[in-house]
């Protein structure tokens, strides 16, 4: 999970142009990290690319926090048979 979380933080910092050291699991993408509508979509698209998975749009958009994203991605990887470290 820690590996997934690190990769989620890396993608988030790249898309939102933030220092990865300042991104915490409890941070909400919109209210804490300032993700706007289009950036939320870009984040999901980049997570899909990073992990090689397909996410369901409404469910993915319902994820609020960085930690929640890592959990959701881990679950989706398991469901789609994608192996990830951690």
């Amino acid at each position, binding site marked *: 999970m820690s590996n997934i979380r690190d990769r989620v933080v890396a993608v988030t910092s790249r898309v939102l142009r933030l220092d990865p050291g300042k991104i915490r699991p409890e941070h909400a993408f919109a209210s804490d990290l300032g993700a706007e*509508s*289009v950036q*939320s*979509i*870009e984040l*999901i*698209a980049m997570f*899909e690319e990073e992990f090689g998975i397909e*996410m369901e*749009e409404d469910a993915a958009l319902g994820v609020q926090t960085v930690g929640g994203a890592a959990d959701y991605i881990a679950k989706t990887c398991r469901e789609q048979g994608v192996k990830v470290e951690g």
Partner: protein
Amino acid sequence: MSDKHRAYPLVDRTEPNLLEDTFDYGLPPRIRFDGPIVEYIDGKPVEFNPADLAARDIVITDTTFRDGQQARPPYTLDQMVHIYDLMAKLGGPNGVIRQTEFFLYTANDRRTLDSCRDLGHKYPECTGWIRADKGDFRLVREAGLSETGILTSCSDYHIFQKMKHKSRKDCLEAFCEVVDAAFEAGVRPRCHLEDVTRADIDGFVLPFCERLLRMSEQVPEHLSAKIRLCDTMGFGVSFPGAMLPRSVPKLIYKLNQQLGVPSDRLEWHGHNDFHKVHANAATAWLYGCDALNATLFGFGERTGNPPLEGALIEYISLRGYLCGIETQVITELADYMRSIGMPIPDHYPLVGRCFNTTSAGIHAGGLRQDERIYNIFDTTALLGRPPRVAITDKSGADGVAHWVNEFFGLKGEHRISKIKMHKLARWVLDQYEQHKRLTSIGDEEMEVKVREFLPEHWKKYGPRSAC
């Protein structure tokens, strides 16, 4: 909460109540009434029951070729024949668009009338329009028309200031001579009470109309005089309690119920100088006047007349069924009008290019989930116009996704997820944030970018027209 206010406990539900008795998406929304309307007239309460409307043969009459043409350069013969043909198709076999009126003064006017009649449509019936001049009945007779409008202006602005009559009596007698001439010619007169909303109702309008009633008793029913109430300057108001001569309800009541002019011999003709034109016309229907006079897209003298297409939608809303009206022809007529140089504003209801186009991303998001959220009725089925989104800085990913899916014609589970459109959504946003663009992004420009950012989908679904 104080004792005088009623409490409203929440009625909780887990399923939505979409009020479909009123908002049946397949039709324009119903206009339903709780019960009678009460107006105080001459100090007494008078009840009007909207339910009576169901039993009356309410109709729309058209003046696109008369008043409508007073606001623009003349139509060509071919254009008028085509418009007449489409109007016949629009109004349907029951004649919801019952009549249309023609000038008769020039050879071209008369050729046009003949060409329209040669199409053989039962509706709209062709009628004429002449000044209050006895000699003009020769034109009506020669044209073979059974009914004509006659200008019988009734305010003192017209009687004294324009027509220079010595007295109201002098004016009334002159009008009656013309009506007599119509009867003698075997032509039904339709007296156009010009400027009625600025007239002395008890002092001139009612005495004149009473005289018309008496004169009509002397002729066969099919010749009996009709009365068109002309709100020439748009002074009419529909609000209950408003005073005469501006009150539409009271004008109709006085003529219909106090004087006894039957509903099927009353017609309302309005103008839009105070943005009240359609509401006033529909009010006239409601209070006992059967005919609503209108023009296509409201084109008419100065600010225009009641829009015919709006009256049709109102008709369906009041009736609750189409009654043979072919609503998609509204769009066909608008396209034709544009093609002959008649401007229709982009945001004009029912036919403007943007009438069901939303720009805000949050609205586009609603459309994506259920188009009923931000569309007035099934505009695809009734007008051939699916709801659309315009792409601007407010569109967001939802707006872009809606545009693309509409462009490809994809519905339900086949719609492309907005996640797949993130590059396109980013490009749109950058136009405004990075490049400081101030205009919306047009369809052609979007098509180019869809091809660039969604090449696989383009290969599979495109190219197709977005409009």
